[in-house]
């Protein structure tokens, strides 16, 4: 072969292999960067609300974001079977969480100088609120009471509270009609006192305006609220659907024939609705939620979702999905 042709052939092979190597080193890099991005996607994915401290002012237009102190009414024999699961699920979403018991433990639980038992529930509440007032008043502006078998979606509570001023004497929950003329909030469904309401409760016991006149905790507290001129708030959403529930979801959402008020809604202050309109999408609480159901609700609220779905109820928008063109059956 002539030297010129030889050089040409060598050049051909050099060019080919050089570019081959070049291309092979670029492509794996692309694959690496894609999987890195995929990795990030995995981390950031759908978990924005499992780390609530990273989210600011999601609760709307109020300048002071609601800081909720959750206090859970519990006792030594429930820590393993119930309270443990509250701590593992929704307890984490509170600004601060306290577990109130008759015994101090490393759970951690706060010791209220009160024995366990149904007859002592109101004493426990009084002691708990006095404790919170003494040690935690500045740490929060709203105070939620819940049982160890209540499930709470704290973000939705924040959303409601963001519309109100915690320096006003306000009291929220599932409003019941009987016994108290302005009504009172169900204990099991969880109730919330504003900072001013808490101050007034404690003052009421100090001055003797409020007393331990009954062992029915939620009703008795409701009486003190009325005496101290704390206002009950209507916590239903803009479609009139309830947010706090003293029973699990299946006691309300199942379609029923029109019927007179069932037993579990006899006390309701506002006319209750059965079927899909019972409950707000942005639900706050359910009661009688034990172990497995705590995690089921956690999964359904914070994890399982329909990809790309435009929810019908979008409280921040004036037009709802119903009015738009849609696909599907």
């Amino acid at each position, binding site marked *: 072969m002539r030297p010129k042709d030889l050089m040409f052939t060598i050049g051909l092979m050099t*060019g080919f292999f050089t*570019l081959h190597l070049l291309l092979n080193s670029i492509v794996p890099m692309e694959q690496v960067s894609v999987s890195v991005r*995929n990795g990030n996607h995995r981390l950031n994915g759908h978990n924005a609300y499992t780390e609530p401290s990273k989210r600011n002012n999601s609760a709307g237009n109020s300048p002071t974001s609601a800081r909720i102190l959750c206090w859970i009414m519990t006792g030594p024999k429930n820590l393993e079977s119930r309270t443990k699961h509250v701590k593992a699920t929704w307890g984490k979403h509170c600004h601060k969480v306290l577990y109130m018991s008759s015994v101090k433990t490393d759970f951690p639980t706060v010791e209220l100088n009160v024995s366990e038992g149904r007859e002592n529930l109101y004493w426990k509440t009084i002691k708990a609120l006095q404790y919170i007032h003494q040690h935690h008043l500045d740490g929060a502006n709203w105070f939620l009471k819940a049982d160890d078998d209540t499930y709470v979606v704290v973000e939705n509570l924040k959303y409601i509270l963001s519309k109100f001023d915690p320096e006003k004497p306000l009291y929220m929950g599932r409003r019941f009609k009987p016994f108290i003329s302005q009504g009172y909030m169900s204990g099991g469904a969880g109730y919330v006192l504003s900072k001013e309401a808490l101050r007034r409760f404690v003052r009421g016991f100090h001055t003797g305006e409020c007393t331990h006149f009954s062992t029915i905790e939620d009703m008795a507290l409701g009486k003190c609220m009325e005496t101290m001129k704390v206002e009950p708030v209507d916590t239903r959403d803009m479609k009139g659907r309830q947010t706090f529930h003293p029973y699990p979801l299946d006691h309300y959402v199942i379609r029923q024939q029109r019927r007179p008020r069932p037993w579990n809604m006899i006390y309701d202050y506002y006319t209750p609705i059965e079927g*899909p309109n019972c409950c707000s999408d942005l639900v706050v609480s359910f009661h009688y939620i034990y172990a497995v159901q705590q995690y089921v609700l*956690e999964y359904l609220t914070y994890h399982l979702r329909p990809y790309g779905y435009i929810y019908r109820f979008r409280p921040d928008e004036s037009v709802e999905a119903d009015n738009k063109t849609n696909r599907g*059956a």
Partner: protein
Amino acid sequence: MLSERGSFMKGMVLGGVFCLVLSLLGSFSPITESKTEDHHHHHVKAASKDELQQLSESRLQELNNQLQISCVIMVQPKNLVYWAAALDTWTKHCDKAEFYTSESSKALEAIDLNEKDDWARLHKALKHAYENAGNIRWFFVAQPSTFAIIENLKYLVLTKNPEQPFYLGKTVKSGELEYVEFNGGIVLSYEALKRLVNVFQDEDKCPERQSALWKLSEDKQLAVCLKFTGVFAENGEDVHGKGLFNSRSVDNLISESMDQNPNNVVKGCCSDMAITFSSMSPNQMQVMMFGVYRLRPYGHDFQDILTFYPPKGSDND
């Protein structure tokens, strides 16, 4: 010397160009084909966020518009309450939902196959679904105690080509046979269904009626027939490798996770993008409608790349 250098350079340039052309030709494939798995690969995942972002707006819209699911629900009058629950809940999200019954019922409408045998009934239903497919290219077969989230099914198959044979769900191995468990729902692409309907004509490979001596459950029989046509079962999974199709209920799976992952119950359990759960009672299905399509914490935006609107005339989603 100079002319030799020149030749070398010319050669190098030509060699480089040649290499480039070859690799471009080698790697060129439309995105749908490159997403088609080797069907012995056994695991099928949705397109990643990046892959979806690489698609043009118009292409995405095109895929979204073409993607329709035909739901085939096998009912019987003896489980009327489940039938009614399916009708009132998840099937409203199918583009087409057809109920096939073993015998007619005065209470609810369905296509009466007048057939007591489970496999023969499935056989007839699938044939009917294929013949009446219209423009629909994806089929989801379920039993009435299964709850499905059709939006998540669409997300899974969005970039998959239905002209390829897909047979997806929760795969189980029984000896040599890998099949999709009926309980968790069965997904068939148009091509898979087409091949199935063709092999139905072969009574040796795929008899309409099984011998009394050797009866396979209908989901196993389906796998056997499909295998003859070169279609293999594949497990539907999310980006973490978690199964999307579940043959048990949420409560059951969470309960198991409490035993196995006591410190990480929810994350150790089920996928965020799960498509099916089974053994759901009618009341549990109504609860699921609320839990899936309504219950959520305020303040989170996912910025999903697809959008699905709620179905018309429905009030529980």
